[in-house]
């Protein structure tokens, strides 16, 4: 076979440049595939770039996405096609030809320096869609200040010249001669092996749903509200209400606008999955924005805070921040005559009222502003795109996928991730993106590395003879820094410091074009040390260090002064002292920079094998994801057989056979030649990323396995309830027990007259504040099964909030239609189970009827919590963190959901937190993709920030040997002094600070390099 003609291609097209598309593109490009990123707007970033902060950590969205934007923008193996749309596709998996239409930008990207002069002079103002129309932009514009690429573009629908043939002001004024009206739309024919669709979503149109929206400017959508909170928004982050620009005192959030609504035109029956959390976030962040206390109220049906640590966030908002949560049905949103305020009329359950009248109670309340928590939907353009690509859609217009192949569309070789797959939040979009990358990588594995280019970094300059020449780059961070700190004064001050030969300010120092300018400046001024005064090195240091490398400078000759997080953000109300503090911080950084030394790093081979701990659905999928890409995988499973928790689950809520699926996976694992060590556990681990040595206790002796990465897929377990008489009677059971009963004794079950299910057993309480996420769907799934077995059976579900997120809502609706009774109870008023001879009953307060109800039942089914597996030993061996409830903590809750902060170790499945099988599969594939991206490098660099022994000073006293938490130092028997292996050293510096002879030095953190900052800070004090 001629592989050149018939084999797969080593390139992938990613359609849509939001966070999902970005993640997929980066994973692919970092694993050895060439990526074409097709984005219809002039810049990537998607909706995430428009968000102010992100739940549940309240990280600034722009701050965490920006490094990814820049990494993508400057990636050698990603071709970014903006203003582009896919017109058609031909071919099959492995070889597609995609026709992409790219609209004219009318600006030469090579020439544009993004100075903004063109936009300043452009006479045509139009609504700025990035700010949801709440501000204006010009016809020539950049989407947002940190846009990638940061190049202007002309919006031809609004350009006066294109429309009327006159103007060309921008062209005349452009100092770079970048405006080019001769540009024409282009069509590219691009050959790729696979396609990933990540076109994202749009928010529902609120107009037909809330009449006042569009009439009263103080009624805004949640996305508009995000812009009002954002520093780059229409009010520069000053929260004022649109009608009179006064700070609001009272804001209401109305949930489920356009979601969970089967009746109204323009609304959707599904749950949008994210609105509860973003409303909580917006309410908390809004409170932080206001000088005076702000009253916030969220009007909701069910609070769906089902994700990892979400319930704690909700609790914090309610209990600590005083956000009011009002369970209600809003039936009218009305103007208040003579004011810009808004009147909300709503009905609530009687049970929520102290008077206890057995009827629905109506209320009304007036607010300064109302935020509509609008749902998500697939845009008409995306629906058209799907048609052109031959990708089937669901009734809700999401890409049709199978729960067992959650990122595969109906067309082989075309994958999907993010909101086009279904409603979800950012971490799950990111997981799916990596999963889609994994799927494409599997298809194209033989072609990995065939189409990528490699970067040539100029040789490193020898600085040994040079005096320090320091450049200081001061960032305005838009207004993040500049609105508080006098950046110009700081810049001028920096220029006066010793060894500083250059200082300058930039609007966004991290932006791609500024990085280009920084490069030019480094070369032009022969800088050999760089200080960036901006945000946190945690997020931005690697970016600037890349720029250093591009200039032939060692990346350790770089120093950051955090004048944003540690200065402008915390001293917003004291601009004078904040400016002085910025000067102090820069003086310290400059002083340190002068003492920095280049550190060398060298390559070390990576062992290409993966060890997967846990052989359930997650572990098997991760192992298969790697094996199918050509990486050897070994599964360690503690039970005698593979399958894990899934062996206790008959079917998914969609009706798919889970046991058959598990059997199929087990067979695939066997067929793939993946070694399985069952009845085994990890007993010891040494080595380091890329070169681990594990000791596996096989129950039959120890096995040693060398491997480059570890995937943790140890799963979770069902809580064995102590509540509701569980264990006292076999009529009280958990959902898993019920599953088994239906499987084995359906005849017995079919005779039941009444089943009562109780939710949140062992979840959302003091002992376990988490929501277990999957129990609501478990109850609905089984309620529907019971109704199928015997339609006459009474099935009653006692719940606190029905958390049927996303399209699961359909099953909730179906269950109600089929007569399943859902009755809410309050946490403080738990149902009571009573035993009366062989009979059992449940008494509970019906909050709608406002009275106590007692019912007998044939079975009581408890929605028991999903708890972390006993994993302390594993956590200790791998040195990875767990949260208070024992679930492993990923590197970043939003953007690194399957990584651990220690490189080379990955996480998937319910070991990360409770989740559905489909979500587990996606996360496992994501873990495989992330691991593959590490393994595909073949070697990694070691050295850098590591401890080094000065043999002449070493007294061989053993203090380092005894103090190292990793047991790295040893006394070299030949030389008689301590030796520290640079590949093993983690760089913590503990030994350095203990060494009695001061014979150990930590690269980049030498005593003089640390103390000089103290000296500089305290200069002139004594």
């Amino acid at each position, binding site marked *: 076979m001629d592989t050149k003609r018939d084999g797969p291609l080593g390139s992938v097209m990613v359609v849509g440049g939001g966070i999902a598309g970005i993640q997929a593109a980066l994973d692919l490009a970092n694993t050895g595939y060439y990526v074409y990123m097709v984005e219809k707007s002039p810049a990537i970033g998607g909706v995430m770039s428009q968000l102010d902060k992100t739940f549940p950590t309240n990280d600034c969205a722009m701050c965490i996405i920006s490094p990814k934007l820049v990494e993508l923008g400057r990636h050698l193996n990603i071709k970014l096609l903006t203003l582009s749309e896919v017109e058609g596709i031909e071919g099959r998996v492995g070889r597609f030809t995609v026709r992409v239409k790219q609209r004219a930008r009318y600006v030469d990207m090579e020439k544009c320096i993004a100075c903004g002069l063109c936009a300043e002079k452009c006479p045509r103002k139009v609504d700025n869609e990035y700010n949801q129309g709440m501000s204006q932009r010009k016809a020539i514009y950049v989407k947002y200040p940190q846009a990638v690429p940061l190049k202007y573009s002309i919006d031809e629908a609004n350009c006066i010249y294109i429309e009327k043939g006159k103007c060309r002001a921008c062209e005349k004024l452009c100092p770079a001669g970048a405006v080019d009206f001769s540009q024409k739309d282009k069509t590219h024919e691009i050959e790729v092996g696979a396609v990933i669709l990540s076109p994202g979503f749009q928010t529902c149109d609120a107009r037909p749903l809330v009449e006042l929206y569009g009439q009263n400017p103080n009624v805004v959508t949640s996305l508009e509200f995000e812009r009002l909170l954002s520093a780059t928004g229409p009010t520069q982050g000053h929260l004022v209400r649109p009608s009179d620009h006064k700070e609001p005192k009272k804001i209401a959030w109305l949930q489920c606008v356009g979601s969970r609504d089967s009746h109204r035109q323009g609304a959707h029956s599904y749950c949008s999955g994210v609105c509860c959390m973003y409303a909580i976030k917006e309410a908390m962040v809004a409170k932080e924005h206001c000088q005076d206390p702000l009253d916030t109220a969220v009007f909701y049906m069910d609070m769906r805070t089902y994700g990892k640590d979400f319930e704690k966030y909700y609790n914090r908002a309610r209990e600590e921040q005083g956000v009011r949560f009002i369970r209600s049905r809003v039936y009218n949103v009305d103007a208040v005559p003579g004011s810009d305020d808004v009147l909300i009329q709503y009905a609530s359950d009687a049970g929520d009222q102290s008077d206890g009248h057995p009827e629905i109670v109506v209320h009304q309340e007036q607010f300064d502003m109302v935020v509509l928590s609008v749902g998500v939907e697939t845009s008409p353009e995306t629906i058209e795109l799907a048609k052109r690509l031959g990708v089937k859609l669901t009734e809700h217009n999401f890409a049709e996928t199978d729960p067992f192949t959650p990122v595969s569309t109906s067309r082989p070789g075309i994958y999907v991730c993010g909101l086009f797959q279904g409603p979800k939040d950012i971490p799950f979009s990111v997981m799916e993106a990596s999963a889609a990358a994994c799927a494409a990588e599997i298809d194209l594995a033989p072609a990995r590395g065939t189409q990528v280019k490699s970067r040539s970094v100029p040789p490193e300059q020898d600085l040994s003879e040079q005096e320090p020449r320091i450049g200081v780059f001061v960032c305005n961070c838009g207004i993040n820094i500049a609105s508080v700190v006098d950046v110009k004064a700081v810049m001028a001050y920096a220029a006066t410091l010793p060894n500083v030969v250059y200082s300058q300010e930039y609007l966004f120092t991290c932006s791609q074009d500024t990085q280009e300018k920084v490069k030019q400046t480094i070369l032009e001024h022969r800088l050999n040390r760089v200080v960036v005064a901006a945000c946190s090195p945690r997020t931005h240091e690697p970016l600037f260090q890349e720029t250093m490398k591009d200039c032939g400078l060692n990346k350790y000759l770089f120093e950051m002064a955090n004048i944003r997080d540690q200065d402008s953000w915390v001293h917003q109300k004291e601009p004078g002292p904040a400016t002085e503090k910025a000067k102090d911080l820069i003086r310290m950084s400059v002083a340190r920079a002068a003492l920095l030394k280049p550190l060398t790093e060298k390559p070390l081979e990576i062992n290409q094998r993966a060890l997967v701990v846990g052989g359930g659905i997650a572990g098997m999928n991760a192992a298969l994801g790697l094996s199918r890409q050509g990486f050897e995988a070994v599964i360690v499973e503690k039970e005698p057989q593979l399958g894990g928790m899934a062996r206790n689950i008959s079917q998914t809520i969609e009706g798919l056979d889970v046991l058959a699926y598990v059997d199929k996976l087990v067979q695939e694992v066997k067929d793939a030649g993946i070694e399985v060590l069952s009845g085994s556990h990890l007993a010891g681990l040494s080595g380091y990323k890329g070169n681990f040595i594990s000791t596996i206790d096989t129950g039959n002796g120890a096995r040693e396995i060398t491997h480059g990465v570890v995937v943790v897929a140890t799963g979770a377990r069902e809580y064995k309830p102590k509540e509701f008489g569980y264990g006292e009677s076999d009529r009280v059971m958990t959902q898993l027990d019920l599953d088994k009963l239906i499987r084995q004794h359906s005849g017995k079950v079919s005779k039941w007259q009444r089943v009562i299910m109780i939710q949140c057993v062992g979840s959302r309480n003091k002992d376990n504040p988490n929501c277990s996420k999957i129990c609501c769907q478990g109850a609905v799934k089984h309620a529907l099964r019971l109704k199928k077995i015997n339609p006459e059976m009474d099935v009653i579900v006692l719940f606190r909030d029905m958390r049927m997120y996303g399209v699961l809502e359909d099953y909730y609706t179906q269950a109600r239609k089929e007569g399943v009774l859902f009755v809410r109870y309050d946490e403080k008023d738990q149902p009571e189970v009573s035993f009366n001879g062989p009979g059992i009953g449940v008494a509970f307060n019906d909050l709608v009827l406002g009275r106590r109800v007692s019912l007998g039942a044939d079975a009581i089914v408890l929605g028991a919590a999903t708890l972390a597996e006993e994993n302390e030993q594993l956590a200790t061996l791998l040195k990875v963190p767990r949260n208070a409830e024992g679930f492993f903590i990923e590197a970043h809750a939003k953007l690194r959901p399957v990584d651990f902060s220690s490189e080379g170790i990955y996480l998937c499945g319910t070991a990360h937190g409770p989740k559905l099988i489909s979500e587990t599969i996606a996360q496992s594939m994501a873990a495989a993709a992330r691991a593959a991206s590490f393994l595909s490098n073949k070697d990694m660099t070691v050295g850098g920030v590591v401890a080094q022994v000065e043999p002449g000073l070493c007294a061989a006293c053993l203090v380092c040997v005894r103090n190292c938490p990793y047991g790295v130092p040893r006394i070299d028997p030949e030389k008689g002094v301590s030796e520290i292996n640079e590949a093993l050293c983690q760089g913590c*510096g503990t030994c350095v*600070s203990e060494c009695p002879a001061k014979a150990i030095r930590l690269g980049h953190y030498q005593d003089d390099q640390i103390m000089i900052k*103290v000296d500089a800070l*305290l200069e002139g004090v*004594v």
Partner: protein
Amino acid sequence: MPCTGRVAIIHLMKALEKGADGVFVAGCLEGDCHYQAGNLRAKKRVAYVQEVLKSIGMDPERVAMYNLSAGQGPRFAEICREMTERVRQLGPNPIRKNGERKEKAA
């Protein structure tokens, strides 16, 4: 600092010697050290410096060890306020006071 395990006794001493009114070390939560136990080493070193300060007649409260996670921004602010308030109570570092006097004299 990569880890509070790198914080040496001399770093804390020098900061005070150079005129800082107070120094605190902010490490990971106990049991959550990214490098396993660096924060526990730092805790001991802080206690040692406190002893040295006592022996030279300085207030040991001028140095402190705090533990918090990267996610606890508000806690960090609280610690900063707490430490500032404590140092304010203690007054300026006596070294600094003398320094100022000398400056005035000069």
